[in-house]
């Protein structure tokens, strides 16, 4: 019996020794102190939302005395991977990233971490905790609930409607859809007649909406996962002479705020894109200087409902002061 215990102890010790190699990722984090570069990577600036967050992060970083490198991955995880390699090769002090997919981006962020470069994620999450230093997102669920509640109110809690979904690989598309349906699903007289993805795209939403209108000419409302798709849907409805259909978007883009003022779109939910980008840079700055962050990794910033009544209070993805 005593011999067997010793053998067991030996096995335990062996296991412990062998797993010490698993710790290196946790400790790699202090090799980039010489660098003064913050690399900012977002999806394509064609969408004003991403352009705004990239510009806001860039401006804040320069204000704090950093050099910056602003790159776009266009939603392509392979391209994102190359850009992360660029950031690593340039020995960035920190990376501010709006990522290209909740699962596909985990490895890229891990790679930067392994190279000792902290990542500060904005706008979108990855499906892993403890790899990025911060993940700062809009409170998409709270925003979706705001949008859906307004949509239900405008619909009089009844009628046929269409939902346009965002890109499936993006957690934000799922969370907004869930927020919409959690609210709308509680109103039995609201009927979802079509639910389709237009992949965040305005032309795709226009085409999808044209087809949906053929099959469902009596729809009363369209709720969209973002503003570019809402603009596409509103254009298709206008072309079909269906001006009175209620369209609700999500993002708070300047085009949609203008469309709300013009009466073409009923409401949207403003994401504080500029604020989130600035928060990420401020936290990156603190982390570069102190080597640590005392804030939780996952942070959510609340969204605001934009309607014809308050549309003049909003600027470019931010409330005017």
């Amino acid at each position, binding site marked *: 019996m005593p011999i*067997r215990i010793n053998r067991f102890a030996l096995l*335990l010790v062996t296991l412990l020794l062998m797993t010490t190699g698993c710790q290196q*990722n946790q400790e790699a984090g202090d090799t980039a102190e010489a660098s003064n570069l913050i690399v900012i990577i977002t999806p394509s600036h064609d969408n004003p939302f991403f352009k705004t967050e990239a510009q806001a992060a860039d401006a804040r970083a320069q204000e704090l005395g950093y050099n910056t490198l602003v790159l776009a991955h266009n939603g392509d995880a392979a391209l994102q991977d190359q850009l992360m390699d660029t950031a690593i090769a340039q020995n960035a002090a920190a990376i501010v990233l709006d990522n290209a997919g909740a699962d596909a981006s985990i490895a890229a962020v891990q790679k930067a971490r392994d190279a000792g470069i902290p990542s500060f994620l904005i706008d979108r*999450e990855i499906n892993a905790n403890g*790899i990025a230093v911060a993940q700062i997102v809009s409170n998409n669920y709270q925003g979706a*609930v705001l949008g859906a509640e307004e949509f239900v109110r405008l619909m009089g809690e009844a009628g046929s409607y269409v939902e346009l979904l965002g890109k499936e690989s993006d957690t934000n598309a799922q969370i907004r859809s*869930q927020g919409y349906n959690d609210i709308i699903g*509680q*109103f039995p007289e609201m009927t979802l007649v079509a639910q389709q993805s237009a992949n965040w795209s305005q032309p795709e939403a226009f085409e999808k909406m044209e087809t949906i209108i053929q099959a469902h000419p009596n729809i009363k409302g369209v709720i969209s996962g973002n503003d570019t798709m809402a603009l596409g849907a509103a254009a298709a409805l206008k072309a079909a002479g269906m001006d009175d259909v209620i369209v609700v978007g999500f993002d708070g883009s300047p085009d949609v705020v203008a469309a709300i003022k013009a009466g073409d779109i009923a409401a949207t939910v403003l994401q504080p894109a500029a604020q989130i980008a600035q928060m990420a840079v401020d936290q990156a700055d603190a982390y570069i200087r102190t080597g640590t962050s005392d804030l939780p*990794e996952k942070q959510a910033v609340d969204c605001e409902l934009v309607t014809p009544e308050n549309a003049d209070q909003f600027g470019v993805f931010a409330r005017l002061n």
Partner: protein
Amino acid sequence: MGSMVMENTSAPNFKICHLDEPSEERSPTFGVSSAWEISPPFSRRDDTQREGWGIPPCGFLLALAFLLLAGCEIRPLDPATGKAIIEEAQQAFDATSFVAENWEARVLPTVRNDSVDLNTLLAALQADQEAASATYGHREGTRPYNFIVQGTGRVLEVDTTSRAGLVLLDLPPYDGTSEASLQIGPVIRGTALRDALPFITFDQFANQLEYANVSNAMHTRLVETVLAKLDLQALTSQEVRFAGVFTFRSLDAVMITPVEIRVENAE
């Protein structure tokens, strides 16, 4: 497998060969998961089998250790469950169970015991919103403050025209105007109940979906166990005692999600 889970004391942020063992760990950590099972000869045996097995040679043990770790990779742990985050585990987060585990044990006691009197709070907010928020409120980051309150009020109206039903309350001194409302469902707006509780934070969950599901599961539980049982007709014109939570938007829009409502004089 249970007997083989080991805590590495020199690196408390790591768990080794962690597969299915529940954990008290709340902060995001790394774990090592292995696809290998420990086979019976090397796990602890009961006394009746003791004489039946020989002692495996040391080299064999080392080889086995290699094999065990060959399948290892680094995984973050899901702080809500303490399990390594793998696709199946992540989808398996069950908000309903999470709420069931916490409802009687933590949610209700916190709302009952950590509340401030609503009239006291509203007066303090009126006088100095920032100071009152810091004293009585709870929030994450820059999001709006949430308050846990209890109090008494007279029911002016039970409004069920919307499925997000409301009881309009006149708070003392009674002047016939409504200063606050109680959400009576079946649709509950907002996420005040989740957000007012300091022991439930966004950081605990893998993503916004899980975090949102927790709020929804809390509302389902609230409607089923409390609000659906209310006799709404008996409430009108009565004085009620309530305990609940709200997210502060403005003093004109105090909408409380109650976890308790009872008619004050009903014996």
